[in-house]
């Protein structure tokens, strides 16, 4: 117990008068500044909690020893429902088998109740630890009082308070009631990490049992007596709007309750999905032009002109780039391009809305319940506190569910038909209805002096609806004396949005591939070249440096070591390292030539995300992130013809499958730094590591994604 954590008394609200059956600690896990707001009880519905009272921001210890923790952030596979209570249980010294976890509904008391930006654990780490430590303090104080012993002589272990001197031992359940009468301390000590028993271990997903037995825990499974189902026909092409609707046939189809047109939506309302799907096919809707009708070929041409434009927005400028390039012994110039990709969470979009005169009830999968609620309030012109949002488990998100278009549709439809309704999307709806990771093209230029030193660096990023497609302060910025990074965007009616590791999911591939080209031109080893640049940033930094040089250097060195960099025979290795979401991941890809084709056999990843909370969940994020990065670099593309997505379902839209996976070996840097992001950072480096390895194996550099569309693969069958 070494760390003292300042906590305001007002941060915790112990509710003693209402329970009578244990310790109930209401607290603000996520308020930015301790003590700014007080926890107040708010009733909640349908969370499945059957305890004595409903509080949504609490940790409770019942007299039977059950510890209940509400998890506020939406769960979409990042394993937050398991990691959050692990942090609480660690400081509480709880018996993990007695932990019960419930998904909290949306409540403004939570700060940052969203899933995105790999931020849940970093933001809640201290608060969760303090909550557990505070409860533990109260339990010890209760025991000490009971035994007339000094609290400092009492210890805790696995749900018990122990007084070794007297041999006394009481369970948390037995102490809970007494603990609820003790004043909450202002400061509680937090554990030293060497004493961690739960944090850092592999703890199984707390919802495994429900998932493997097929319990209806996802939004699309939600059912409410009296609700109707609906599917919506949206404009088939971006840049079009409804001209006329003939729904006569659809309305006459069996099981159809109504067909409603609002905005650019034609909603078919019915009793069962299949009947609705069949009726929707009979709709006769004419569309007319309402903006630019764009094709992928238009974007390809547009990128060329944007790359040559004089009107780019400068993002970062260090030194004198012009002179550096004029004096260069060698100049390297290269361009990289990525296509649109769809998010494609396995569970297509869906939401339940029940708009009543007295308020609105929302249930479903959303990464951002708060923003969705605000938008619904604006749409209906009602106060936000009239709207409840219950968060179901999300069948994936990848950024798609940061948008709430599908929530607003359900709300508007419910308000029109005056019925509770669940709106379902088909896969085709999902893949053609936006939003997407936008297409981007980059041009890199590097100037080397006669000793192979990088003396000048230019990057221009041009993207669709991508105001800034660069990360101007990322590596190698800070390590190059003369540097210019600028960007331009094209505004398109094709809807775009954040996709797992926004911008960096492609920028990292382009940049790490280009650095490989530069290293080659400089006659340097890829790893050594990066380490030299970091050393330059350390000793003679240029401008602002927003990455941590030591952490990046460590993952580079460890990845080189774990992968046997430069020591393997018959294996071509590619290197990549990237900093995103405050974490650092270095990767090495092994490629072996098999029957004249490059086979990606293994990818090594070393991640520094600070403290690893749940080893099992963290491995999932890294291994899954690597495969996600590899799969999309290899196969992912969504193309447009006259505003219409050409790929509308799996099959034409290719996702990685089991037969295509390489081995992945993941490692974590053990440095005890407070946690940084992990849901996204493992994805960005993968494309670069793979492309660099394939270059080494074949001499061909893959510059455009997806790789399978590149000439190297086009000429080979069986890809």
């Amino acid at each position, binding site marked *: 117990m070494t760390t003292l954590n300042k906590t305001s008394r007002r941060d915790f609200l112990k509710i003693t008068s209402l329970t009578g059956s244990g310790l109930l600690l209401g607290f603000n896990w996520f308020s930015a500044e301790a003590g700014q707001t007080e926890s107040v009880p708010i009733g909640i519905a349908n969370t499945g909690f059957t305890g004595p009272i409903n509080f949504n921001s609490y940790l409770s210890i019942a007299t039977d020893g059950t510890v209940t923790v509400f998890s506020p952030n939406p769960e*979409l*596979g*990042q*394993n937050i429902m398991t990691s959050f209570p692990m942090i609480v249980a660690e400081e509480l010294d709880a018996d993990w088998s007695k932990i019960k976890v419930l998904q909290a509904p949306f409540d403004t008391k939570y700060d940052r109740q969203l899933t995105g930006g790999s931020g849940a654990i970093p933001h809640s780490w201290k608060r969760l630890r303090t909550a557990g430590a505070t409860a533990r303090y109260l339990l010890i104080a209760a025991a000490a009082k009971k035994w007339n012993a000094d609290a400092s002589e009492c210890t805790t272990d696995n749900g018990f308070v122990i007084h070794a001197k007297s041999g006394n031992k009481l369970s948390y359940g037995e102490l809970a009631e007494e603990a609820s009468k003790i004043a909450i301390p202002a400061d509680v000590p937090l554990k030293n990490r060497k004493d961690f028993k739960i944090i850092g271990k*592999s703890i*199984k*997903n707390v*919802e*495994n*049992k429900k*998932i*493997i*037995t*097929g*319990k*209806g*825990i*996802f939004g*699309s499974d939600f*059912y409410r007596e009296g609700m109707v*189902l609906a599917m919506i026909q949206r404009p088939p092409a971006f840049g079009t709007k409804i001209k006329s609707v003939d729904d006569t046939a659809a309305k006459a189809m*069996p099981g159809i309750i109504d067909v409603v047109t609002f905005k650019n939506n034609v909603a078919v309302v019915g*009793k*069962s*999905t*299949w*009947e609705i799907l*069949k009726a929707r096919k009979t709709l006769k809707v004419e569309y007319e032009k309402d903006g630019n009708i764009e094709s992928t070929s238009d974007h390809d041409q547009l990128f060329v002109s944007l790359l040559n434009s004089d009107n780019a927005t400068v993002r970062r400028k260090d030194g004198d780039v012009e002179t550096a390039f004029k004096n260069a012994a060698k100049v390297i110039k290269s361009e990289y391009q990525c296509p649109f990709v769809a998010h*494609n*969470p*396995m*569970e297509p979009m869906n939401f339940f809305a029940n708009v009543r005169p007295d308020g609105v009830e929302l249930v479903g999968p959303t990464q951002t319940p708060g923003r969705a609620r605000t938008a619904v309030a604006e749409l209906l012109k009602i106060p936000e506190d009239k709207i409840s949002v219950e968060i179901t*488990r*999300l*069948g*994936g*998100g*990848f950024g798609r569910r940061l948008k709430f278009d599908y929530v607003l549709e359900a709300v508007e439809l419910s308000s029109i038909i005056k019925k509770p309704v669940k709106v379902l999307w*088909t*896969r*085709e709806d999902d893949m053609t209805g936006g939003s997407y990771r936008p297409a981007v093209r980059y041009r890199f230029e590097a100037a080397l002096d006669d000793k192979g030193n990088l003396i000048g660096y230019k990057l221009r990023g041009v993207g669709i609806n991508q105001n800034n497609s660069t990360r101007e302060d990322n590596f190698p910025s800070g390590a190059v004396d003369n540097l210019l990074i600028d960007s331009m965007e094209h505004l398109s009616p094709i809807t775009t949005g954040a996709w797992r590791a926004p911008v960096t999911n492609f920028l990292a591939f382009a940049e790490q591939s280009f650095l490989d080209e530069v290293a080659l031109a400089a006659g340097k080893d890829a790893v050594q070249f990066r380490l030299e640049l970091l050393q330059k940033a350390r000793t003679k930094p240029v401008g602002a440096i927003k990455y941590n040089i030591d952490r990046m250097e460590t993952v580079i060195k460890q990845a080189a070591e774990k992968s046997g960099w430069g020591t393997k025979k018959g294996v071509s290795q590619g290197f990549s390292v990237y900093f995103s979401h405050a974490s650092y991941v270095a990767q090495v890809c092994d490629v072996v030539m098999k029957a004249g084709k490059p086979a990606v056999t293994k990818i090594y990843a070393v991640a520094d995300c600070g403290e690893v909370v749940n080893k099992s969940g963290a491995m*999932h994020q890294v*291994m*899954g*992130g*690597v*495969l*996600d990065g590899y*799969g999309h670099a290899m196969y992912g593309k969504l193309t447009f013809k006259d505003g219409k997505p050409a790929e509308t*379902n*799996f*099959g034409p839209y290719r*996702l*990685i*499958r*089991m*037969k295509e*996976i390489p*081995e*992945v070996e993941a490692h974590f840097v053990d440095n005890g730094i407070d946690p940084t992001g992990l849901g996204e950072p493992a994805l960005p480096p993968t494309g670069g590591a793979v492309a660099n390895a394939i270059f080494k194996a074949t001499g061909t550099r893959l510059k455009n994604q997806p790789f399978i569309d590149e000439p190297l693969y086009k000429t080979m069958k069986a890809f």
Partner: protein
Amino acid sequence: MPIFNLRINGKEYKADVAADTPLLWVLRDHLSLVGTKYGCGIAQCGACTVHVDGEATRSCTLPVSAISTKKITTIEGLSENGDHPVQLAWDEADVPQCGFCQAGQIMTAAALLKRKPKPSDQEIADAMNGNLCRCCAYHRIREAVKLASSKI
């Protein structure tokens, strides 16, 4: 509409639906068996996999009229208490991330192991290749199939 008598998870069900209704939607909309998931509707993702007379089958493209007297097993009926060796292996290997595809993955794996209790890596990949996992938990899925195989 015709009434179809279905044998699902050892129980008799009646469904009053159009003959072309895919089994998936009969299960989800009419029988409240929502463990079987919709992912693509064209038999490309495997999220809707059930057993038809023990064979892993995509329920999203199987019309209810084609079932006749065949026995259907869904994730809800794979075992009484969630303790089928594949389910136990899925928990032990801590496979699920978002979890949405897992019912389909488990049903495909269970059918494979019934047919071939000791599959090779290649046979596992062949059998599981039709099941997409967008979270890319493929390594754990493969590990869990092997784990279940070792316990059957």
